[in-house]
């Protein structure tokens, strides 16, 4: 299958600072790829390069088989891009703005009205068409930003932190929209919210210091083998005593009398609790850590500090 985005060896320097170092990625039709990383990891830089609004210091980008450097206009026609701050003109009404964006992305004037109506329907903006963008709430402005990115029905949708500023209900709707877009188009999005990546993405790439450090497909949300637990004590042991407990391989974190421990794969939770009770440490809490992705993320981006 032909990839929608093929980026090879992307690097970007700002002066002497390396923001992105030799990144290679591919996005296939029907896929939602999540870029995950701490602040300053190079997520936005990557997406700006893929959208053509920033030139890479080195490397090549193909959008649906068209080279972005050699045929920029043809390649850009196939992509929609939402930057980290939505690119809105507060003095325009929502309809005027979307009409401008559609014309800018060369939507033929005959299908302009349909395109605007469809984008508004998908982002839940049907009632807001005649309102000034400057007077909308942040969540609605974010939706207008998403509407502008999908108005021309692009093959590739690039979303930089698409859910920032949304309330929980809007969050659910927008995540549903992103999953839906993933069926029809290819979507690449960035986020630093782990559950979001887990719930909408079919594949994840973790960036750290401008380098990809992890890339994998995500399952359908089944919990991986549980190896992290938060354990609360009434009578806390010393760190050494806890680490010496059979089956405990590492102490990840501590908050007062609560400890986050990593256990050997074989250790069952009831076995762990029995051992703690037997030592009289006053077990108060034993909570499995749900996010397996969070474990990977923490290990890769601040692994040295945690161990």
């Amino acid at each position, binding site marked *: 299958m032909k990839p929608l985005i093929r980026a090879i060896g992307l690097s970007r320097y700002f002066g002497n600072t390396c923001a992105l170092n030799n990144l290679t990625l591919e996005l296939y039709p029907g896929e939602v790829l999540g870029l995950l990383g701490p602040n300053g990891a190079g997520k936005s830089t990557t997406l700006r390069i893929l959208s053509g609004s*920033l030139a890479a210091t080195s490397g090549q980008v193909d959008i649906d088989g068209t080279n972005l450097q050699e045929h920029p*206009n043809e390649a850009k026609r196939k*992509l929609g891009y939402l930057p980290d701050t939505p*690119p809105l*003109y507060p003095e325009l009404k929502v309809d005027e703005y979307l009409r401008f*964006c559609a014309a*800018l992305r060369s939507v033929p004037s005959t299908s302009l009205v349909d395109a605007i109506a469809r984008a508004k329907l998908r982002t839940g903006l049907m009632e807001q068409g005649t309102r000034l963008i400057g007077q909308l709430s942040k969540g609605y402005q974010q939706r207008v930003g998403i509407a502008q990115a999908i108005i021309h029905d692009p093959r590739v949708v690039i979303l930089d932190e698409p859910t920032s500023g949304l309330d929980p209900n809007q969050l659910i709707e927008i995540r549903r929209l992103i999953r839906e877009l993933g069926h029809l188009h290819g979507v690449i999005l960035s986020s630093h919210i782990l559950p979001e990546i887990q719930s909408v993405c079919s594949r994840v790439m973790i960036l750290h210091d401008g380098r990809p450090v992890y890339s994998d497909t995500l399952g359908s949300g089944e919990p991986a083998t549980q190896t992290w637990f938060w354990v609360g004590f009434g009578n806390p042991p010393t760190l050494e005593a806890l680490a010496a407990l059979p089956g405990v391989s590492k102490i990840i974190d501590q908050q007062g009398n609560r400890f986050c421990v990593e256990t050997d794969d074989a250790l069952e939770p009831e076995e762990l609790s029995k051992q703690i009770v037997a030592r009289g440490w006053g077990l108060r809490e034993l909570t499995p850590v749900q996010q397996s992705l969070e474990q990977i993320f923490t290990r890769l981006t601040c692994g040295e500090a945690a161990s």
Partner: protein
Amino acid sequence: MGAIFIKELRCMLLSPLAWSLLAVLQLLLAWLFLVQLEQYLEIQPRIAVLENAPGVTQLVVIPLLDSAAVIAMLLIPLLSMGLLSREYQSGTIHLLLSAPVGAGQIILAKYLALLIVAAIMLILIAAMPLSLLLGTGLDLGTLLAGLLALALSLAAFAALGLCISGLTPQPAVAAIISYGALLLLWLINLAGSGGENSLLEMLSLSHHFRRMLTGLVTSEDIAYFVLLVLVCLSLAIHRLDGVRRWS
């Protein structure tokens, strides 16, 4: 490109900024026009007996167009200052850069929208001297040369303002630098001790503008304004291409 042009024009004509600038310009010029007309009426009986006496065109209309250029020089940077810098400031530049349009098309669309507002300005300015036709005759040749000079000057002010707007994300800074650059170009010939053809004379906006105001339209003066516009627009395009590379 058409989309950007329509959007820019719409935003400019919907904002109170353009209309308040036009109103201020009109008010100031109307005052100057009335003062000059009154003075002309006072001295007119005395100069009427002279041979080859200067007429109303030389004594009222040309000074009016001269003042109009100076006032427009102070107003156009306020219209042009936000054209690119506000796009940088609000991040909307990423929308334009990720759209299938080149830097040249973006600059040209914005310039044309600015020219439309400048054309409205020109029509409003021209209406005042033309109203004299109701009561007297005018030297239409001189008037047309003067209006051409004013039109070319407005186009040059707009191009320079647009170019400088592309240099900074702060609209106010863009306006200040535009003032500096325009006034320098206007006054640069003051330093020149040489004659007509010294380098500073050739660079000076006011030199070319005032020569056309006398009714003398030369290809040299027209070429000066056209070149100034082309240089400013090319620099703006170059700069916008650079945004992709450097920022």
